[in-house]
């Protein structure tokens, strides 16, 4: 499990400090697919880099902690690893698929050599190159990828194929946590479906945890178990995926889901007016207040806390706190 406690990740820039992620807390359990949803500038990519343990200047951990708790398979011993040590466990317990990763492979190195690069020289000597490559080839075939992909250069494969290869490389060592940042953006719908279903079946087989970042709510609906919704650097709602879509409680989640056009449904849809606040100087109160249909004067002054309003359903909204009237968009009859 990964425990994220009151984490704030800021960037030092010429114009000032950008508070990309502020005071975020939640947990990632074993054996689930968690979707992190939000739009441009909400901080999801920054948070993922932080969770992965890849915090480098100008980004820094302003406060809070991220811990990885693992249980040793042999002796059942529990070990708590702090974020600063995560890099020791890259490609063992943690693996990361960055955004636009189809473009990050070294164009002059063959796939099989890039794969071998993820092992230390010592390990390669211990196991022997051939053993490792054979194991990789077998794994690729399990994923219905042609084995001769290993001998190819990245540019010889299509974008979709490259992405599938990267997913294979990242999951080959069966890490406990796989973080994928927008793994299917810029890919065709059919290829996207293939990759997402591949991720889902990999997760079912290995029983590990996938954290998937995407701005596409449809993708979350299809394969995630639980969702974390972010807005302007804060977490605004956490719940099981089916609950998020059936009964969103945070006004942003509500308005976002309502704005999405559905095939076969011609109902009038409206986008949210306005735009997210600047993170150089975030507002004192709720960051969504100026675009929210429920907001009142208090909302712009007081920062809402993330509270568990139903078992497993967390919402950060003053108007949804126990004791306030629970009116939804539907009940208001507002489109």
């Amino acid at each position, binding site marked *: 499990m990964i425990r994220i406690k009151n984490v704030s990740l800021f960037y030092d820039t010429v114009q000032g400090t950008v508070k990309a992620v502020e005071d975020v807390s939640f947990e990632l359990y074993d054996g689930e697919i968690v979707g992190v949803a939000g739009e441009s500038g909400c901080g999801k990519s920054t948070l993922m880099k932080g969770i992965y343990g890849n915090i480098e200047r100008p980004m820094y951990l302003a406060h809070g902690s991220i811990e990885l708790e693992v249980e040793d398979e042999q002796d059942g011993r529990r070990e708590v690893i702090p974020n600063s040590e995560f890099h020791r466990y890259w490609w063992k317990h943690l693996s990361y698929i960055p955004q636009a990763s189809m473009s990050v492979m070294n164009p002059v190195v063959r796939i099989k050599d890039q794969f071998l690069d993820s092992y230390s020289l010592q390990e390669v000597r211990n196991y022997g190159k051939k053993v490792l490559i054979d194991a990789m080839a077998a794994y690729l075939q399990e994923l219905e990828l042609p084995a001769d992909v290993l001998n190819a250069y990245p540019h010889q494969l299509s974008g979709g194929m490259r992405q599938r290869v990267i997913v294979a490389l990242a999951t080959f060592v069966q890490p406990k946590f796989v973080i994928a940042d927008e793994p299917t953006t810029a890919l065709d*719908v059919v290829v996207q479906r293939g990759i997402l279903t591949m991720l889902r079946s990999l997760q079912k087989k290995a029983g590990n945890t996938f954290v998937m970042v995407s701005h596409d709510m449809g993708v979350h609906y*299809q394969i995630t178990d639980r969702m974390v919704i972010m807005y302007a650097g804060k977490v605004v709602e956490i719940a099981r995926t089916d609950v998020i879509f059936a009964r969103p409680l945070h006004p942003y989640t509500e308005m976002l889901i309502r704005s999405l056009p559905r095939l076969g449904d011609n109902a009038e849809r409206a*986008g949210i007016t306005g735009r997210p606040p600047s993170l150089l100087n975030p507002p004192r109160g709720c960051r969504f207040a100026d675009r929210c249909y429920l907001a009142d004067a208090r909302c712009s002054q007081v920062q809402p806390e993330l509270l568990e309003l139903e078992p497993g359903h967390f919402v950060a909204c003053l108007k949804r706190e126990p004791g306030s009237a629970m009116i939804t968009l539907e009940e208001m009859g507002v489109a």
Partner: protein
Amino acid sequence: MSDKFLEIQAVTKIYRTGGLLASTKLTAVDQVTLALDKGKAQILSIVGESGSGKTTLARMVLRLILPTSGEIVVDGIRASGTLTRAQVKEFRRKVQPIFQNPFESFSARKTVDTYLFETARNVWGAKNKQEAHAAVDQALVNVGLSAERVIGRYPNQFSGGELQRVSVARAIIPHPELLVADEPVSMIDASLRMNVVNLFKKLRDEFNINILYITHDLSTAYYVSDLIAIMYRGNIVEYGPATTVLTQPAHPYTELLLDSVAKIGEKWSELVRMPDMETKEYGYVGCKFAGRCPYVRDICRQVKPPLVKTEDGREVLCFKLTDYQVP
């Protein structure tokens, strides 16, 4: 005089890559025929994935690329040929583009209003500052923006959705009759998309502007289009009224697309066959979709599929509808 506003007749675009001795031929657009009637404006969506040829087709309509063969005629003007200066001016007044990336559509070194004023002066024909200002103000109001919010600002001071609306404002200043929008909302956040998509509906209904809406997103295409053309590797495989095509797909590729969309409300079932290397598919002798089609028969691989006109007003490029016989 033709009763058609836009006519795309058997347009083909072939790219040659490689050197003198060994070159490969890539048919990006293959014998595409489409038309829009005069009169009531319509939104025609061209839906396809990457490599379908939809962007190439759009750029040919905009005169940014010339077809290898075939004709494109917009309200009497032969867009696919050489035009006189006067004809180019006329064309620009009638046909305007909206590109995918709003931040690339404006120079980062200039304020966005310079493009608006240029359009007002050069394309619409404003005779003086007041007329130009009036035209720009009106266009901004029509897209839901205010002049004071826009004038004097640089592109990086807007969000993607707002900047795209500025693009639309610029495009409607000369009162065009056709807007060619190439993936206009794919780079905009989901919650801001509908602001732009609804704007297209308004332009069609209130200003009678035809819109050629190029996209890979079926949901927005369904929401906004009257007509829809599905493209695959350069061919239009299905064409017809949007509701019919997207709720009762006739072509196997349309079926596959609809199945694969990450929909909210319906979960996927099993894995689906992945596409082959793109370049190979372009070179198929028969139907280009044969390699992936669940209904494929031998004839599909050997002979080009026929264009079948159905009773409900559609055109489908498939042997399935002729019982796998050559008509």
